[in-house]
């Protein structure tokens, strides 16, 4: 809530995105509307329990058969993490961090799209903030994105001879995705990302991993700006008209010296009817300092005057992926 108070525009966007699906005036006119919400909880093998709560919503606009309008989607997600301020003290008070991401993806023409996403992290306990901007260009089956991020610690930092008022680092991330559509019901997506830091990352990594800022270690998996490289894949399978699954695995290397980080997701989805989809997910992530298990529930309702179906997805409530909520849609449930 503190983040929303600081950013009224963010609060405005949240209200619009959450309320508009339920507006009958819009619902009657906009053919392709979709929303989903996530709740999750995590435990850590080291440093006590961590809980994360989040919500994700996606609104689809336009329709592919209306050539006077471009189809587009707006998406927004928010995650709040709660953890001990000092993971080495069993009586430590709790602190929390706020993650959010959102943006728009516009289909320029068949198979081509452009997307812009913004994301942010706010940890008031550590005075850490991250702001990222990502541009995505899609030309099926490829997708390329560039993200520029600024991470800052806006607090006094003692040095050997003096104290500086804050620290900042820039990050440039390049990512390439490839979708291998094996059949109408099965797609494997490969993705790889590499980051260049300015200045080089190790000193900033040591700074946020220092004793005075030790509680950062609890949030490695939710910090968006600290991966030097990452690669992995996601397999989406539509087994029947009712059941779909999505499995992903990623390996990454972060500037915080607790590597490697392994992250896996397993999601099973149920398409109860063309407009109603429920998915249950389990995320497992592990690095030498901790293990996280996260449960995930997403409920999705869509409006579509052309009765198109939107099928299963993986939503982690973290860095936004414009395509992640709308995988390839085979001829099912028409």
């Amino acid at each position, binding site marked *: 809530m503190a983040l929303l108070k600081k950013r009224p525009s963010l609060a405005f966007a949240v209200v619009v995105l959450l309320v508009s699906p339920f507006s009958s005036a819009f619902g009657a006119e906009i053919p392709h509307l979709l929303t989903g919400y996530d709740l999750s909880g995590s435990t850590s093998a080291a440093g006590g329990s961590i809980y994360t709560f989040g919500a994700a919503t996606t609104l689809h606009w*336009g329709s592919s058969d209306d050539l*006077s309008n*471009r189809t*587009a989607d707006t998406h927004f997600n928010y995650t709040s993490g709660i953890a001990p301020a000092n993971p080495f003290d069993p009586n430590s008070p709790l602190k929390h961090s706020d993650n959010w991401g959102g943006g728009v993806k516009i289909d320029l023409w068949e198979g081509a799209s452009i997307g*812009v996403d*913004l994301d942010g992290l706010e940890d008031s306990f550590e005075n850490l903030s991250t702001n990222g*901007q990502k541009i995505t260009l899609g030309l099926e089956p490829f997708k390329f994105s560039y993200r520029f991020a600024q991470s*800052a610690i806006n607090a006094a930092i003692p040095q050997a001879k003096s104290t500086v008022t804050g620290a900042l680092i820039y990050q440039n991330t390049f990512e390439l995705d490839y979708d291998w559509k094996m059949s109408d019901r099965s797609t494997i997506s490969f993705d790889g990302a590499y980051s260049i830091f300015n200045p080089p990352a190790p*000193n900033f990594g040591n*700074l946020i991993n220092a004793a005075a800022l030790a509680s950062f270690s609890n949030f490695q998996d939710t910090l968006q700006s600290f991966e030097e490289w990452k690669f992995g894949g996601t397999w989406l399978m539509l087994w029947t008209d009712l059941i779909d699954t999505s499995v992903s695995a990623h390996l990454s290397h972060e500037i915080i010296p607790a590597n490697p980080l392994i992250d896996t997701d397993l999601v099973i989805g149920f398409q109860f009817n063309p407009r109603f989809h429920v998915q249950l997910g389990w995320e497992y992530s592990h690095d030498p300092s901790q293990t996280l298990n996260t449960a995930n529930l997403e409920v999705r309702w869509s409006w579509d005057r052309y009765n198109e179906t939107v099928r299963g997805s993986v939503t982690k409530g973290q860095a936004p992926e414009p395509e992640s909520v709308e995988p390839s849609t085979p001829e099912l449930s028409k």
Partner: protein
Amino acid sequence: MRVFLLALVFSTTAVAATPSLKQREDPFYQGPSAEFTLSGTSNSVSNNTATVFQGQYGWDTGISIQLLVPILVSDSNPANPNNTFPRIGGGLNGRVEADGLFRAWGDTYDYLGFNVGVGFPWQSTAVEQNGDQDSWLLSLAVFGRVDWDWIALEGRLNDSPSFPAKHAANNVEVYQDVTNSVSISGTAFVYPYKWLAPFFAYTEVFPSAVSTSIDQGLGYFTLNQTSIGRTRTVSMGAELAPVNVPVLLTFEFNVTPLTPAAPGTQYSGVGKVRWLF
């Protein structure tokens, strides 16, 4: 035969109907259009005059592209005594900007659209080349309109995240960075006549911050942040559509009770001409 030939002549020489006032307002107007804006602004620190040249082309698919070139004609700000005029930048828009407008839903009268654009770090004078406007910028907006024939409401949410401007001072690298500049605006149009549309508007620019980061060889930049306060502006004006010429004229008067850069109230007058070709 004579009647047929006469009809043929009339049909081949028929002139397309002049767009209505609302069609002239349409940001997704099909075909080429151009707009010229002239503004005068006065506050306790300076008086300035600025212009913006804008060219646009729209397709029937709901996509438009536009190019904006802002030029500051004069500025009496004593903080910048060595400015040369006219110069690119400052004033209404800080950067030369290329935008894509995408209509995701609707038509000329009711629509929802997105703006995705890029601001270029092209500044023509040394003052701006050493300022925070000498940097790349993303110009993002979601905007929409609902029309009830005699009245229409428009809303807009803007966000302009900028990339840092890098300078060298005393052999150290200095980065100037502005956090997201977010603003919202709402405008109510009234249509008492086919050629006249008075409007009232409210704009709010949310607080942001300027950070100055210096490379002192620590492995991270040292950071100094200063905040930029909130700005609220109320506006009133009118749009005029001459009967047989595809032109839209706009006159606007703005009052900003409090601006972060200058104490006291700021006043500005804006005039626009939009040609539809």
